[in-house]
């Protein structure tokens, strides 16, 4: 999935699907030249051009470069706070939304130069414009930290109003829109962790809270759309904990429903790790002996159907070792011995089906045997 956006009229910037969303900000790449002094780029194909094509493209880029350098110099001079300077930051951020100093300059202008001279109605309108700017930028740059951050800043600065009797009205209107925006972002990329983090932030801070139940429904929808979406499973685990802790759901009943949901997913694609990780969360420390025994039996059944299933074997080892660790008093010496032997046998099978992680299985087998000796 690659979407193309235009920076100005001459420079085409390709935003590849970014997968490594980490410490840095710039993810743009110019695909015009065969070797570019790129700092940080993802998912952009290396293209080879002839020397002539390269020179032609370079000449075309010079006008854009000149414009950018003038804009950059004007902006960093920071000599004044006025409409013209404000518009400079808009132009700059449209060209380079990762330029954090330009965002800082803009916020300083708003706080110290613009807001003090405006009515609350006007301040609210300005912040609505700011939010629209970031919405437009996020569509092209969904993984740029500083754009998301500016959005948070806008929301935090919405004034009281519209009236003394309705101090939260503007805030509520603005915050309500946020869930819509973030859902659009998650429709475009259901794994975007910036969007998920922002979603949790909105749900936690909006003036009139949405129910945790409706968030549970949202995660169901995302999971049904794609079982592999671990981000949605993760969110589900967090929402369920809050529903259990606040007594809105009976943990015992709710867990049974979750086991049922996850079982369907396991049978659909036993090689998808999202589902197995979630299952491991559901089992937790494995306090409930009957539940863990039942799940072991159910996974064994699936393994019998799919004898090479790595995740069946891996999970069986994990849960059997959990039984050995937490329910040892319920087991006879013979049962302990046979559980240990089953783990060691499964770990040996895992070395065959998953040789990349062979050493881990060897280490676990050694530890399992050592625990039995103790």
């Amino acid at each position, binding site marked *: 999935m690659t979407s193309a956006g235009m920076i100005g009229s001459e420079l085409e910037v390709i935003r*590849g699907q970014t*997968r*490594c*969303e*980490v*410490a840095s*900000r*710039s993810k*743009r790449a*110019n695909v015009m030249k*065969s*070797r*570019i*002094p*790129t*700092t*940080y*780029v*993802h*998912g*952009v*194909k*290396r293209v*080879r051009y002839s020397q002539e094509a390269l020179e032609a493209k370079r000449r075309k*880029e010079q006008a854009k*470069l000149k414009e*950018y*350098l003038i804009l*950059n110099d004007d902006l960093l001079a920071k000599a004044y706070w006025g409409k013209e300077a404000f518009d400079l930051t808009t132009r700059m951020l449209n060209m380079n939304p990762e*330029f*954090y*100093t330009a*965002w*800082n300059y803009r*916020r300083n202008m708003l706080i110290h130069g613009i807001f003090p001279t405006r009515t609350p109605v006007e301040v609210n309108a300005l912040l609505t414009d700011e939010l629209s700017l970031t919405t437009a930028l996020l569509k092209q740059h969904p993984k740029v*930290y*500083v754009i998301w*951050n500016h959005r*948070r*800043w806008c929301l935090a600065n919405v004034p009281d109003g519209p009236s003394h009797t309705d101090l939260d009205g503007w805030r509520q209107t603005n915050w309500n829109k946020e869930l819509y925006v973030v859902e659009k972002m998650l429709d475009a990329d259901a794994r975007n*962790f910036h969007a998920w*983090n922002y979603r*949790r932030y909105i749900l936690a801070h909006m003036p009139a809270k949405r129910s945790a139940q409706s968030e549970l429904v949202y995660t169901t929808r995302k999971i049904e759309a794609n079982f*592999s*979406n*671990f*981000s949605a499973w*993760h969110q589900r*685990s*967090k929402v369920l904990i809050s529903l259990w802790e606040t007594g809105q759901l009976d943990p015992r009943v709710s867990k049974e429903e979750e086991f049922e949901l996850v079982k369907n997913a396991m049978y659909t694609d036993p090689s998808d*790790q*999202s589902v197995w*990780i979630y299952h*491991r*969360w559901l089992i937790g420390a494995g306090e409930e002996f009957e539940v863990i025994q039942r799940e072991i039996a159910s996974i064994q059944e699936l393994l019998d159907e799919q004898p090479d299933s790595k995740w069946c074997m891996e999970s069986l080892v994990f849960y059997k070792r959990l039984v050995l660790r937490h329910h040892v008093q319920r087991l006879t010496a013979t049962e302990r011995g046979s559980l240990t032997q089953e783990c060691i046998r499964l770990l040996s099978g895992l070395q065959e089906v998953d040789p*990349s*992680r*062979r*050493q*881990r299985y060897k280490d676990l087998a050694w530890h399992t045997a050592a625990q039995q000796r103790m």
Partner: protein
Amino acid sequence: MSASTSTLLIPLHAKYVQSLGESKDDLMYHLTAHLRMNAIYWGLTALCTMNHKDALNREEMIEFVMSCWDDEAGGGFGAHPDHDAHIHSTLSAIQILIMQDALDRVDVDRVVKFILSLQQPSGVFAGDQWGEIDTRFLYCAVNALSLLGRLHELDVEKTVGYVRQCRNFDGGFGAVAGAESHAAMVFVCTATLAILDRLDEIDQEMLGWWLAERQVPSGGLNGRPEKLEDVCYSFWVLSAMAILKKVPWIDSDKLIAFILSAQDTDHGGIADRPGNQADVFHTHFGIAGLSLLGYPGLADLDPVYCMPARVIERMGLRKGWEGLPRKAS
């Protein structure tokens, strides 16, 4: 795989890093000015790991770093002259100055004050006065304070308390409390706990499992379950594995082959994946990964501080991590 990508092209990559500063007529060079300090740190660390530290001019580099000092912000470095101070560029500046043995150029008291001023009541750190928070900035703070010998001024309990809030049932850590585990955040949180001697906060067997499962059939590593592999995770995942002494839990030969296959064999540099555009970020983290995997001819890289191990040892800061033994060339 072609013969040319079966070995690390050290002289070519050194030349690539060296050439990065010579592109001032490129728009892209200017569009990434807000990453310049980090880029210099990535480039210098890559060169140190390849034993080509002298490929960049020491005096020019130190002058550049000092020209990014943001006096108005009260003691931090921006990413570029006239850019605002930020904790990430401040850490990179300190790392560069230490690698160049030039820390005496800095007013350490003011830097420490700037860093400590960014800690929030929850224990997390903001990147700057504008309040963006996450565990990356917390790591930047802890790493920098440790390098400056001023860790005793940090509220360790409060800091560890926030890291604990970011821990998930899968053993990993997220960017903020409640966030999904992500390999980059696993690195920053694990390294933070290593610096603070608090690895007991980690369920090491569980996290080791989660990290080992980042390796995909191509040999590369991904950052989260069911995502695509990328060269930079070679460091985020491997550094945490090295700190937990579990690097042997993945197939190192396959990972080495994956990193090498992402090299640009014409112009140097390493990309996020084979056939893509190279950049200094992936060049550095690819080489860092190779160093931890014992690739021949490379210097040891400390996975906790992401700096040359020799430098960290000389400062007496080495923690108990383990990469793979260096292979003979």
